[in-house]
């Protein structure tokens, strides 16, 4: 009797949780009855990388608010974009379950999926979206073979590691003239790829890395590997790691007495690191994608709305918008553009994808965005550093004229 009781409970839940489902029919436009478009957003709202998810989420919401202020897609308050937010907990299995739900859901019928943050989550779901013929806008996926694996349906706003990591090596060795370099990188698919391309380019430029230490996710105590690196007394330690880890590494380097220059990738060139490191952060090198042109009208409008919606966050990041929020904003603006372009002839998933692939020189917040050249995003990347300004406060400063004298792509052998 006891087992029968629990089985009734389970079957009951099975039915109520799924609701009724209409059989799928050929869709001439993704819009629902009242002309609104549905987009699925899958981000790691809990678990590791949750802080990055929040920023992307903010960027998307700012773009939607801007569209709302303009009276939605038709300008008269109709043609809304409704986003459903899913939490994939930075886990591939969860991501795949969400992907299947999104690609097969008819109530609501999704036009495309935005997310996830880590390439380790979006990369494995690529084939689910490819088979369902639905765009997966993995805006921050930087895996070098992501575009190949996702067929025509994968889009990403971040540069792949083969370019980004090679450029960092070129800057370190040929511009900053370091030749005694040690490397610390996180043991995940992003970390492994960045380490591989960084080491290759370094060897091409004649520099043998002194040490290359990998650490597992969730590691807190780096004192042992820092002691080991201290023995090789490097000039520079390059860290491919998330912002939480670089704070720990840099602090523990101090306790261990390892004194040298430090470099982080664009992933950790954030205001969070600036705040948490305090004085220790002085002199930390970083990499920054093209600066926000402060008097570019696109940026001004975005910043105003951003400041309105998230005053506290804006102030925390010493009055600038956060990098990943910018990418969230760029992503949603390109989506809105593609929908508007195809609305007259019916925005099906295929039509949306074809239009998005023709994107050229779209005025994004961080400079022009082009998908037309085989969906390979090429952004300009500058060296950056934490410097103490005249007012005595530390802040990130970008070497904006570095490219006039130093052709990083040629040096890195990417041309």
């Amino acid at each position, binding site marked *: *009797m*006891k*087992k*029968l*009781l*629990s*089985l009734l*409970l*389970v*079957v009951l*839940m*099975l039915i*109520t*949780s*799924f609701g009724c*489902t209409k059989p799928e029919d050929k869709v001439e436009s993704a819009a629902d009855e009242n002309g609104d478009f549905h987009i699925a957003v899958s981000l790691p*709202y*809990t678990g590791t990388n949750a802080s990055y998810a929040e920023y992307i989420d903010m960027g998307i919401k700012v773009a939607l608010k801007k569209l709302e202020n303009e009276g939605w897609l038709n300008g008269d308050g109709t043609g809304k974009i409704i986003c459903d*937010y*899913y*939490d994939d907990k930075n*886990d*591939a*299995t969860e991501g*795949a*379950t969400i992907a*299947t*739900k999104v*690609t*097969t*859901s*008819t109530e609501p019928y999704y036009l495309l999926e935005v997310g996830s943050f880590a390439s*380790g989550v979006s*990369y*494995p779901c690529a*084939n689910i979206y490819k088979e369902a013929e639905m765009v997966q806008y993995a805006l921050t996926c930087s895996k070098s073979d992501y575009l190949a*694996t996702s067929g025509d349906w994968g889009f990403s706003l971040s540069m792949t590691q083969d370019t980004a990591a090679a450029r960092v090596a070129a800057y370190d060795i040929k511009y900053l003239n370091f030749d005694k370099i040690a490397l610390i990188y996180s*043991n*995940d*698919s992003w*970390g*492994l*790829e960045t380490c591989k391309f960084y080491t290759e380019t370094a060897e091409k430029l004649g520099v043998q890395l002194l040490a290359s230490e990998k650490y*597992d*996710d969730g590691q807190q105590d780096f004192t042992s590997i820092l002691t080991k690196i201290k023995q090789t007394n490097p000039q520079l330690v390059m860290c491919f790691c998330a912002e939480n880890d670089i704070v720990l590494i840099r602090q523990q380097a101090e306790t261990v007495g390892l004194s040298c220059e430090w470099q982080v990738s664009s992933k950790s060139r954030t205001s969070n690191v600036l705040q948490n490191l305090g004085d220790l952060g002085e002199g930390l090198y970083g990499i920054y994608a093209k600066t926000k042109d402060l008097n570019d009208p696109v940026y001004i409008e975005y910043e105003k709305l951003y400041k309105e919606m998230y005053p506290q966050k804006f102030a925390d990041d010493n009055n600038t918008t956060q990098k990943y929020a910018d990418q969230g904003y760029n992503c949603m603006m390109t989506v809105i553009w593609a929908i508007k372009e195809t609305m007259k002839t019916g925005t099906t998933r295929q039509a949306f994808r074809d239009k998005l692939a023709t994107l050229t020189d779209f005025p994004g917040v961080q400079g022009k965005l082009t998908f037309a050249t085989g969906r390979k995003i090429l952004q300009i990347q500058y060296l950056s550093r934490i410097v103490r300004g005249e007012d005595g406060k530390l802040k990130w400063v970008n070497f904006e004229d570095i490219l006039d004298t130093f052709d990083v792509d040629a040096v890195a052998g990417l041309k």
Partner: protein
Amino acid sequence: MKNTALLKKHLLFIIIAVSMLVAPLFTNAYQLRILISAALAMIFAMSLNLLMGIGGTVSFGHAAFYSIGAYTTAVLWYHFKTPYSTNFIPVILITGLAGLLLSLPMSRITGRYVTIITLSFAEIVNLIIKNWDPVTLGQMGIVGIPSVNLFGHVLKDKREFFYLTMLFVILTYIIMNWLVDSKLGRNLRAISNDAIAAEAMGIKIFPYKVIVFTISAIFAGIAGSLYAHLMSYVEPATFNANLSFECISMVVIGGLGNFAGTMVGALFLKILPEYLRQFEFLFKYRMIAYGLVLVIVMWINHSIPGTKLKNAISTRISALFRKKSAEAEEV
């Protein structure tokens, strides 16, 4: 065993199996995927139920065999492009060997120490997979594992894959029950009940430990190999301690030693998170509800007030049935 008694004994299993076999006719791909992952969880949980419920060993590291099964299939496909049917034998051999390996320390170690051995074993297996890059590609994970290829016939459609998994679920249940009703099953239960009395009956404890670990590992490995093809992607991070704890919860909720109960436990814990996903206010705190359910289910099933409450409900329901059937007879 007259077949009516047989039917009555396995009634719960029959109800679950039939309702799951019928389900794909009117579920969409998302619901089907949940049913598949529930079916996989059933095989995995039943294998742990054999080890815990019958063999009396509380294992914290059962995910190790699950990951070995998944990685054996993935690695063999990645390096040799062999189909699932050819990989099946190596999966059974390697996971069985891993089970045997883990049972070796059991000759000297008893009680709670067994639990820490299984936990350490799982951590070591995970670390090997994470860092043995030439073979397992480490943290990069293995991508693009094709659909199951059985002797040339490729199971393209997810429904076919679901029926293959259900075949394994039914086979697992049947074999487990054959085993329990045999000399091996009785001796295992005797050992887990009172090892000294079992010894006095002339049972040599260690060989039985080796057998139960090996068989349990093989079934967990089969579930793992199917998981690899379901996801078409494997990475070390998925096979962590939480997977082992989830499996233990399924077994304990279902009732130790009761294989049909384990299937209910697996179904319950796989559907619950999806069921909770639709409640907006739970958005960020879905896992809190999951933790809360664990505590509540334990409270209902295994605390004095809880069981009183439950018995009260079940007696009232059965009274209801009796009243109804009584009326039926009168009419």
